[in-house]
Structures are given as C-alpha cells and as structure tokens.
C-alpha cells in the first residue's frame, strides 16, 4: 500500500507530469501561453519516431520471441472488444446518442501513444523492465477498435457515407501514427545497435525534454476541452475514469494467461487503459460526422488522459508487479 503511494508520488513529481499540470493551470486560468500547432505536431512526430525506434532497437538486441505474437493477439482482442463494453456503459449511464457513444467507445479500444510513452518512462524509472516489442503491440492496437466502433454505430445510424469509404480505409490502414510507429520500429530493428549508437542522444537524451514540452501542450489543450465536461455531466465524467480502469484490468488476466513479465503486463494494462486522441478521432470525423466530437475529445483528452497520467500509470504498474511479480 505505502509502496503504491510511494510510486504515485514519484510519478507526480516527475518533470513531465508537472509540466502537464502547468499546462492545465495555464489553460484553466486562461493565460495566453500557447504552443504553435506546428511545434506540437513536430513534437508528436518526434515522440513516435523515438519510441518506435527504441522499441525496434531493443528487439534487435534481445531478439524477437513468440511472446510478441501472443502479446499482439491479446492487444488486438482488447482493441476489438473493449468498445463493446464502453458502448454499453455509455448508453446505459449517460445520455449521449448512439453515434456519439459508438465513436467514443472506439477511442477506448484504441490506445494513446503519449500515455504509453509517459508510462514506459515511469516503468523504466521504477525498475520495471518492459520489452521493446510492446511498441509493435501499441501500433497494432491503434485501429481494430475503429471497426468495432463503426459496427456499433452502423446498426442504427445511416452509417458512413459511401463516398468517404476509400478515405476511411486509408485512415484505418495507413494512419500516419501507425505508419510512423511501425516504420520507426522496423528501422530501429534493422539498423540495430550501430543505428542506436548514432541516434542515442536524439532518441534517449532528448526524450524527457521533448516529452515535457509536449505534455505542456497537452495540458493546455486538455484545459480548453474541460469546458466540454459540463455537457458530459457527472455520469459522463465518471465513465472517463471507470473505463480506463476496466480496460487496464481486463488486460491483467490476459497478460497472466500468456505469461507476460510484470513490466510487459504493466505496459499492456497502460495501453488497454488508455484512450486514443489522434487516430480514432480522425477516423470518426470521417466516418461518423453525426457523432459529437466535443464529447469524445473531452472524454479522451480532458478526463481519461490526465487520470491515467497521474493515477492510472502508477496504479497499473503497482498492480502488475504485485500480481505477477511474485
């Protein structure tokens, strides 16, 4: 117990989390602090490139085992199925319409790269070792949830515009963040230790700094989204906290079943508990324009992300190492 609190405190005083808090403060206080969009996108590209490359380089060092396959299967299963749970909860306990509920549900099956990035830094900080191949799992989990979301929506609404279909398919298969993550992973793998030697400073030395700057921006954006929270009501806000817990704890038995290490299990819990805010919203705008983006963006950015960043990550790590660490 006190251990868990210790972990949580360590997490809360990392510069990255504190810069997120600073962003939230500045946004809520309506300071004119702002980060140009091009810079925010550049930082996001950097984080994806770096985490992908590092994952691949780690795989190049320890080799790939069949555990990646099992982990990927678990990830895909979670990504496909969690939206069903999320949809049921949203329809049962909140007043959001079917299309919006389906779109929101898809976010919770998918993952958030930055949550994973922050989480993996936390794991490393606390000595929990995770495998590089979890980065591939991260990329693989991004999009299955979109299909479930569309299926949930399609049973009622008019469904996606047929003319939007080619674009939608491209969005699902060739989403920029998936392409960059997988690409950087493969490059890290292919170029191995010698590649890592040349990019070490870039992908490791700078990582914390760029993450701080990016989280400052996330805080600013999340704060502006908080206005949308009123529309959600208490039940909606509660969903944004309960659903990541469900996602994370649904991952635990799977992780145990396939014999994951505590570190990998914690990583899978973090992925499963996180909610997308890049790939899925983009696909949902294309496919389900009826769904209200202020609902799903507020849920994902302004409620679930801060929850995971501050409480979720240390909690999942603590549980994973308590349950599987023995």
């Amino acid at each position, binding site marked *: 117990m006190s251990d868990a609190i210790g972990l949580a405190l360590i997490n809360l005083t990392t510069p990255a989390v504190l810069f997120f808090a600073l962003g939230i403060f500045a946004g809520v206080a309506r300071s004119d602090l*702002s980060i140009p*969009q091009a810079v*925010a*996108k550049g930082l*996001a590209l950097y984080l994806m490139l770096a985490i992908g490359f590092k994952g691949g380089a780690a795989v190049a060092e320890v080799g790939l085992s069949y555990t990646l396959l099992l982990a990927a299967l678990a990830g895909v299963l979670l990504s496909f199925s969690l939206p069903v749970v999320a949809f049921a909860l949203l329809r049962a306990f909140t007043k959001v319409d079917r299309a919006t509920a389906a779109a929101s549900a898809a976010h919770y099956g998918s993952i958030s790269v930055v949550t994973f990035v922050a989480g993996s830094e936390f794991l490393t900080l606390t000595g929990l070792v995770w495998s590089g191949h979890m980065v591939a799992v991260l990329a693989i989990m991004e999009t299955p949830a979109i299909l479930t979301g569309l299926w949930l929506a399609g049973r009622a609404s008019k469904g996606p*515009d047929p*003319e*939007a279909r080619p*674009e939608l398919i491209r969005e699902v298969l060739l989403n920029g963040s998936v392409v960059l993550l997988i690409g950087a992973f493969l490059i890290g793998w292919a170029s191995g230790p010698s590649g890592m030697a040349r990019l070490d400073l870039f992908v490791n030395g700078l990582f914390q700094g760029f993450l701080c700057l990016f989280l400052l*921006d*996330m805080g*600013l*954006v999340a704060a*502006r989204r908080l206005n949308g929270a009123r529309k959600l009501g208490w039940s909606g806000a509660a969903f944004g906290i309960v659903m990541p817990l469900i996602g994370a704890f649904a991952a635990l038995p799977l992780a145990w079943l396939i014999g994951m290490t505590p570190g990998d299990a914690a990583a899978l819990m973090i992925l499963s508990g996180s909610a997308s*805010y*890049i790939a899925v*919203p*983009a696909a949902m*705008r*294309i496919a389900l*324009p*009826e769904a209200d*983006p*202020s609902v799903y*963006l507020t849920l994902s950015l302004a409620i679930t992300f801060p929850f995971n960043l501050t409480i979720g990550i240390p909690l999942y790590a603590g549980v994973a190492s308590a349950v599987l660490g023995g």
Partner: protein
Amino acid sequence: MPRPIRKKIIAIVEAAHLRRLVDLMQGCGAAGLTVIDGREGYGVTGDWTREGVFEAVEMKIVHTVVNAQTADAVFEKAEVFFRRYPGIIYAHDVEVVRGERF
C-alpha cells in the same frame, strides 16, 4: 470596358471532409480552386481552434471562381453534402479578366 462576370463560391468545411468537397467541386467542372487554413471559429455545431495535434475538426476555407452553370452544379451537390457535414457554402458575383478561364 465592362469585365466579364463569374461566380465566386466559398465553402467552409472540416479538414476531415475537405478532400471530398474538393473532388465534388472539381467533378462539377471547377477549373481552379484555392484552399486556405482557418484559425478559429464557431457555428451551430460549436467552436474550434487550430491547436494541438488533432486536425480533423479544424475548418478549411475553399474558394473557387466558376461560371454560372458550374456554380449551379456545385450548389446542387453541395447542399446535400452540407446537410450531413458541418460548414457553410455561399456565393456572389465577381468581375474577372480572362473570362474564358473559368
């Protein structure tokens, strides 16, 4: 010397649906077209601003100068389009040079 009159059509559309609107206009015969980034705004579906990494709900401004016939075709199709997607479309007359271009 009076200059030839054409129609300028302006549409405001979400980035997520821009590609389709451009194709629609080109399909109606628009010989040229220019897109501009929006910065912020509001409408009946809420407000938005350029920020962060998520672009799909930002608005783009599409403008095309066309002849009257193309304008009617665009309006007809765009009306259906904007029944489903957020945004607006409107038009007005403009004087041009090299009228045969449009």
